[in-house]
């Protein structure tokens, strides 16, 4: 009896450990570093028309790796998450147009500066706002965690504007271009590139950048001194042999079409679809994979939790209640950050983004599933259990033959609902850099600034998958009710 109750828990535990085990990376002969980066920071870091990560940062990094004989795994995500990855030991280094500040030196070791920069303040093209004091009472868009945003924030008191935070550069730009925010602060070369790329914004202090500084390559304080040394050595060589200048010119002097594709490809819906078909397809596959695995595993986990919730053992009931309470209460994104960025620092093992995302979905969706599974079992008339028991059927048989089949039938609509929620929730995992549909959209918009068309395409793709999922569910429901 005890064995039968413990077995499912052991299986679940084994599954958990298995997922962590996947995270273990085999050691190769050449050192392999994990380098995190911002995915939407042209011309330093962005995706080109072939969905390769390119930019000044990326070309420098590639050269450093080549000359020092190491390999690296690139982890593109939002800037804030990318920086935290390094601070928590999930990644070895970050190159993301990251400005060198005293504050950052407390947490990171930094390379020699590789690019001089300053902060621009920017409004919509043709805006009548011409001085910072005119921003009083207006909203300023800032990107969380960046040096430019800190600079903007330092001016907030003086000029009396309100602040609104964004996670990626492109959404922030569009908020200003659309007139939702009056202005934004951004690093000079980044905004210059974006404007050259067709964004309808205007720099107000082109010759007078604020808080002039420089970008550096960062590692966690005290870790990876070799990586910093390699970077500095190669940077010096590249500046001497002209490679550095060639890289900078490649991005700042050449026509943007080189990287982002022809105008036609970017300005029509069909063009966007055609030129990004591989990216859309891969994003869709990733979304579907996440959804399918999450639906299956979260359902199993939820059924286990729900069954524990109606068991005869007070301990199992308490355990089930606690787990459901905890994971239903945690916002999905917090849980994802906790597992992906927080947990590895404690357990000392890196967790791949897909595994972390899947685990997040299982725990979160599983808790919701557990709650309605328990409710479904409780909704089965008590007389059913009494009748089964009066015939001599043991509790387990009474559950499996009488209560569970009737309970599951009651739960079918809840399951269908949960499946659709799971599909939609995968989009939240874009925050930890999983290249699913939403993250794919973010990257494409960062390149071509076609927010309306790209998000419409992504939205329709979600609708199509949800429609297929609903059909499948209805078909399943009919079969079950036969």
């Amino acid at each position: 009896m005890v064995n039968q109750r413990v077995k499912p828990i052991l299986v679940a535990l084994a599954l958990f450990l298995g997922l962590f085990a996947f995270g273990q990376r085999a050691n190769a002969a050449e050192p392999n570093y994990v380098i995190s980066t911002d995915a939407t920071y042209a011309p330093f870091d962005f995706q080109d028309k072939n969905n390769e990560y390119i930019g000044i940062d990326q070309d420098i990094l590639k050269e450093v790796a080549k000359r020092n004989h190491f390999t690296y795994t690139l982890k593109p995500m939002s800037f804030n998450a990318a920086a935290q990855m390094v601070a928590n030991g999930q990644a070895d280094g970050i190159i993301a147009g990251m400005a060198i500040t005293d504050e950052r030196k407390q947490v990171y070791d930094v390379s020699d500066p590789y690019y001089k920069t300053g902060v621009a303040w920017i409004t919509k093209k043709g805006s009548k706002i011409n001085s910072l004091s005119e921003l009083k009472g207006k909203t300023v868009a800032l990107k969380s965690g960046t040096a430019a945003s800190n600079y903007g924030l330092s001016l907030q008191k003086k000029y009396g504007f309100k602040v609104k935070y964004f996670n990626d550069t492109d959404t922030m730009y569009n908020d200003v271009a659309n007139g939702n925010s009056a202005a934004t602060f951004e690093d000079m070369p980044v905004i210059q590139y974006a404007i050259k790329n067709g964004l309808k914004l205007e720099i107000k202090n082109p010759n007078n950048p604020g808080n002039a500084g420089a970008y550096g390559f960062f590692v966690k304080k005290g870790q990876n001194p070799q990586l910093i040394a390699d970077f500095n050595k190669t940077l010096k060589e590249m500046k001497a042999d002209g490679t550095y200048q060639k890289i900078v010119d490649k991005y700042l002097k050449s026509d943007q079409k080189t990287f982002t594709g022809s105008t036609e490809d970017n300005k029509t819906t069909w063009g966007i679809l055609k030129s990004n078909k591989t990216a859309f397809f891969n994003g869709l596959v990733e979304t579907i994979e996440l959804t399918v695995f999450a639906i299956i595993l979260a359902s199993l986990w939820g059924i286990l939790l729900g069954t524990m919730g109606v068991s005869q053992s007070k301990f199992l009931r308490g355990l089930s209640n606690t787990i459901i309470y905890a994971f239903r209460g945690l916002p999905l994104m917090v849980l994802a950050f906790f597992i992906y960025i927080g947990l590895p620092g404690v357990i000392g093992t890196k967790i791949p983004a897909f595994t972390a995302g899947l685990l997040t979905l299982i725990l979160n969706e599983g808790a919701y599933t557990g709650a309605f599974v328990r409710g479904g079992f409780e909704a089965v008339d008590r007389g059913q259990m009494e009748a089964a028991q009066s015939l001599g059927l043991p509790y387990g048989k009474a559950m499996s033959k009488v209560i569970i089949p009737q309970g599951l039938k009651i739960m079918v609509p809840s399951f269908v609902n949960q499946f659709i929620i799971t599909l939609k929730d995968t989009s939240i995992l874009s925050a930890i850099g999983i290249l699913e549909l939403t993250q794919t959209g973010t990257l494409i918009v960062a390149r071509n600034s076609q927010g309306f068309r790209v998000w419409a395409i992504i939205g329709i793709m979600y609708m199509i998958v949800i429609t297929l999922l609903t059909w499948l569910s209805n078909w399943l429901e009919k079969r079950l009710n036969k």
Partner: protein
Amino acid sequence: MSEEKQVKVHVDKVNKSYGDNHVLRDISLDVMANEVVVMIGPSGSGKSTFLRMLNQLEMPNSGLVEVDGYDISDPKTNINKVRENIGMVFQNFNLFNNYTVLENITLAPVQLGKMTKEEADKRGRELLATVGLSDKADVSVNSLSGGQKQRIAIARALAMNPDIMLFDEPTSALDPEMVGDVLDVMKDLAKSGMTMIIVTHEMGFAKQVADRVVFFESGKIQESGTPEEVFNAPKNERLQTFLSKVMQA
């Protein structure tokens, strides 16, 4: 060795309360093999709770309950084994909604390894014939009337070949015209020598079928005796009041 002397149910000084509500007070009762005991009394008098204690759907707070020689007031007793020999029929039928009529009857014997699927099917059809519902074997239980459901419930309980049958107000949820069919099945069962303990409000049926009538009131057995003694010459005042009320109706 005469079968009649064998004690099937032995209850000694049983008490049961839910919080402050003292439902059963020091109840003692023996039921012999082949005996038909009918329990009457006003609602809330404790007769249903008493019946449900005989197969441990309720646990007593104190006292001894022995069924078939097993002490089922002891939590260590394997109650499932004891329950296999005690059939129970509920007021609300409690047929398994996820099975057909025949599957309801064969589920327990097959699951508990008492019979093969074939044996259970054969026995199931025999029982359906006994309760007059042979044509309903393969229909869903939700398509049946209350009277039909209750007869199937009796057949389901009998499929385990129990030697004691408990009936908890088996006709209370039925339309009046259905009651007769169910009582007829129970009468046949009594005639066949089954040990039966029945909670009911059907006084006429009690008179006809009972070997002994037990009157419950306020959690106590106030009076018990043959139907003649209880119905024609009640000694207890509360029994007299109860009978005058139910006989008027």
